[in-house]
C-alpha cells in the first residue's frame, strides 16, 4: 500500500481547526504523551503551543541530545544542473525562466566535490532540476560512481524516477534520496505546477517508497513553507514521516523545513510562517518523531540558524551555492539559455559572459542564500554552542 491512500483519508482541515482552537492545557497533555499521535502534533504546533514555546524548546533540546548526542552532522549541496522541464511558479529553474543554464560534466562535478571536500564535507547532496535528457539516471549514476572513491556519503535531490531507474544510482554508491512534496495541498499544488511531469501529485508523493524499494537507506522529505497554510503542511509531513517509518522501516528519515526564498521569477510567498513558528515546528517534529533527522539549510539567516541548532536540528549545510559550478566556476564556459528543450548559445560578446566579482560562474542559482558565512565560521560557531560538527558519518565503501 502506498501513502496516497492514507494521505487521502487524512482529515487535514479538521486537524488544523483543532490545532487553532487548542488551549494550553491540551498542549501540556500532548507534551506528556509517551506515544504522541497526529492530534498531539497538531496541538504542539498550535497558537497555544506557541505560548509554551520555551517549554517545548527545553523538551526538544533534551530529547535531541539524548537521541543524537551533542553533534551536528554537516552536508553541502552540489548543484549538477539547472535545466528543468517543469514550470513551478516559485522556482528559479522553471523552464520558461530565461536564466543562464548549465549541466556540469562528470569532471566538473568532481572538481566541485573536491573543493567541498577541502572545506571538510564528506557528505554531499547532489541536486539537479528535472530533465530526462540533460540529467538522465545514467548521468547521475556516472556522477555518483566518479565521486564514490572520494566522497563517503552521497545523497540526491533530483526529479522522481521509477524504482528500476534508481537502482543503478544506488549500485553506484548513493545512499540517500531527498524529495520534497513542496505542498501537500492538492489545489495549491496544481496551481503552482503549471507544466511538466511534476504536475502528477501522487507520483511525487510515492517517490520515497520507490526510492526505498530501490535500496536507498536514507530518505528525506519536506514541504516548502510559503505555498499553503504551514500547519496543514506540517501535519501532512508528520503523517508522511509516520507512514515511511512504519513501511520503509529500515530507512533513516530526515525532514527538511525550507521556507520560500526570493528567486528568479519574482515569486512572492503566498503564506507566512514566522521565525517563532519555525522554531515551534522544529520542536514539534522532534517531540513526535524523536529519531527523525531535522535539516536546516542556508536559506535561513545566520542569527536564526544559530538559535535553532540547539533546539532539535541535526543536519546542517554551510557555505552553500545553489548554482551549478558555484564553488569553483566549473562549467562556466558552457552557460547558455534553453528554449523549448534546445540549447541557445550566448553571443560571443554578450554581457552575460561578463565576470562578476563575487561569483565563480554566471549560471543562475535556484534561490538566494541567507547565511553567507564560511564553512569554517559555521563549524566554529557549532563548537561554541557545545556541539561537535560531524563531517563523516557514513562510508559507501562499507557496503558497496
Amino acid at each position, binding site marked *: 500500500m502506498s501513502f496516497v491512500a492514507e494521505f487521502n483519508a487524512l482529515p487535514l482541515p479538521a486537524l488544523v481547526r483543532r490545532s487553532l482552537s487548542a488551549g494550553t492545557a491540551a498542549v501540556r497533555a500532548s507534551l506528556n504523551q509517551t506515544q504522541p499521535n497526529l492530534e498531539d502534533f497538531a496541538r504542539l504546533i498550535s497558537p497555544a503551543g506557541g505560548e509554551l514555546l520555551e517549554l517545548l524548546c527545553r523538551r526538544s533540546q533534551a530529547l535531541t541530545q539524548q537521541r543524537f548526542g551533542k553533534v551536528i552532522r554537516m552536508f553541502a549541496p552540489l548543484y549538477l544542473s539547472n535545466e528543468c522541464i517543469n514550470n513551478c511558479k516559485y522556482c528559479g529553474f522553471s523552464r520558461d525562466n530565461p536564466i543562464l543554464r548549465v549541466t556540469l560534466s562528470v569532471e566538473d562535478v568532481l572538481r566541485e566535490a573536491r573543493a567541498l571536500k577541502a572545506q571538510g564535507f564528506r557528505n554531499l547532496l547532489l541536486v539537479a532540476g528535472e530533465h530526462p535528457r540533460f540529467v538522465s539516471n545514467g548521468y547521475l549514476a556516472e556522477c555518483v560512481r566518479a565521486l564514490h572513491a572520494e566522497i563517503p556519503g552521497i545523497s540526491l535531490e533530483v526529479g522522481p524516477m521509477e524504482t528500476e531507474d534508481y537502482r543503478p544510482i544506488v549500485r553506484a554508491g548513493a545512499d540517500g534520496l531527498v524529495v520534497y512534496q513542496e505542498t501537500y495541498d492538492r489545489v495549491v499544488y496544481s496551481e503552482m505546477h503549471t507544466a511538466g511531469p511534476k504536475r502528477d501529485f501522487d507520483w511525487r508523493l510515492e517517490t520515497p517508497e520507490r526510492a526505498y524499494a530501490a535500496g536507498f537507506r536514507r530518505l528525506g522529505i519536506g514541504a516548502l513553507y510559503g505555498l499553503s497554510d504551514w500547519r496543514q503542511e506540517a501535519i501532512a509531513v508528520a503523517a508522511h514521516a509516520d507512514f515511511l517509518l512504519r513501511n520503509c522501516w529500515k530507512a533513516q528519515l530526515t525532514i527538511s523545513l525550507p521556507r520560500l526564498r526570493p528567486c528568479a521569477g519574482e515569486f512572492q510567498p503566498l503564506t507566512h510562517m514566522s521565525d517563532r513558528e519555525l522554531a515551534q515546528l522544529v520542536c514539534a517534529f522532534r517531540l513526535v518523531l524523536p529519531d527523525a533527522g531535522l535539516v536546516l539549510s542556508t536559506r535561513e539567516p545566520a542569527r536564526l540558524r544559530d538559535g535553532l541548532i540547539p533546539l532539535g536540528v541535526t543536519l546542517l549545510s554551510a557555505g552553500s551555492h545553489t548554482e551549478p559550478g558555484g564553488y569553483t566556476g566549473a562549467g562556466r564556459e558552457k552557460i547558455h539559455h534553453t528554449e523549448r528543450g534546445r540549447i541557445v548559445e550566448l553571443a560571443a560578446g554578450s554581457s552575460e559572459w561578463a565576470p562578476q566579482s563575487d561569483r565563480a560562474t554566471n549560471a543562475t542559482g535556484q534561490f538566494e542564500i541567507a547565511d553567507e558565512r564560511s564553512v569554517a565560521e559555521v563549524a566554529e560557531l557549532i563548537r561554541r554552542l557545545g556541539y*561537535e560538527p560531524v563531517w563523516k558519518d557514513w562510508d559507501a565503501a562499507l557496503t558497496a
Partner: protein
Amino acid sequence: MRLVDDGLTIAGRAFRSRLILGTGKFCSPEAMRDALAASGTEMVTVALRRVDLSGGRDPYANILEFIDPKRYLLLPNTSGAMNAEEAVRMARLAVAGGLPKWVKLEIHPDPRYLLPDPIETLKAAEILVKEGFTVLPYINADPVLAKRLQEAGTATVMPLGSPIGSNRGLQTRDQLRIIIEQATVPVVVDAGLGAPSHAAEAMELGADAVLVNTAIAVANDPNRMAVAFKTAVEAGRIAYEVGLGAVQETASPTSPLTAFLS
C-alpha cells in the same frame, strides 16, 4: 552461575575495569578523551562509519587520534550495517585499515529503536568467528540466541537492557538473569543504562561488564558522570561477589518470636 570469580577476561585478555565506553555523541573529541580517562575503562567502541578507513589520516574523521591504543582496546563496531553481509564487510575493512581483529557486531536495520536483528547477527557471527575475529555481538536479551552465539564461538554476548540511548535501564531484567545464569562467556549488558544505578543493578545481577555511552556523553559534566558510572560498576560487582540478602515480603524482626527457645 559461576561460583569462582577470576576477574574479567575476554578472549584471553584480562581487564581490570568492567566498564566499557562508547565514543559517540560527545560534544567534542577532547571531551570524549577526558571522559574515557576519568571512567577508568580499558575498552572502547568506535563506529566504523565515522573512521577514515582508507588508511589515511583524514582531519575531518579523526576520532581515533583521540583514543590511545596503548591504553584502550579499540573495539570497532559495525553500527550502520543492515545485514550480515554488510557487517562482515565492515569488520574486514576495519582489519585492513589497521584496527584490531575484534569486532562489536551490531546489526540493527531499524534506525528508530536500533534493535538488533537476531538472524543476521548469528549469520555474521558464524562467518567472522571462522575468519578468526574476536566477536562481541550486540543482541536483544534472548537467552536462546545467546546460547546459539556462544556455540558459534563468540567471545561474549552483549544483551541490551533497553533500546540504545533510551536511558530506560534494565527493562529486560528477567531475560538477562537467564542469560547470565546460562552463560559460558562473559555477559556484557549493553544499551539503555541511563543512570549509574542501572549499571550497579546489572552488575548486582551478575553481569560481567556493562557498556555505557549516551548517559556519559550527553551529561552536563561527562567526566564526573564517568566517575559515577565507574564507582557504580565497582559497587555493583562487589555486592554481587558478596551476595545480596534475599528479598522478603515481610519484615524480619531482630527479636524473633522463637527467642524464648534458646
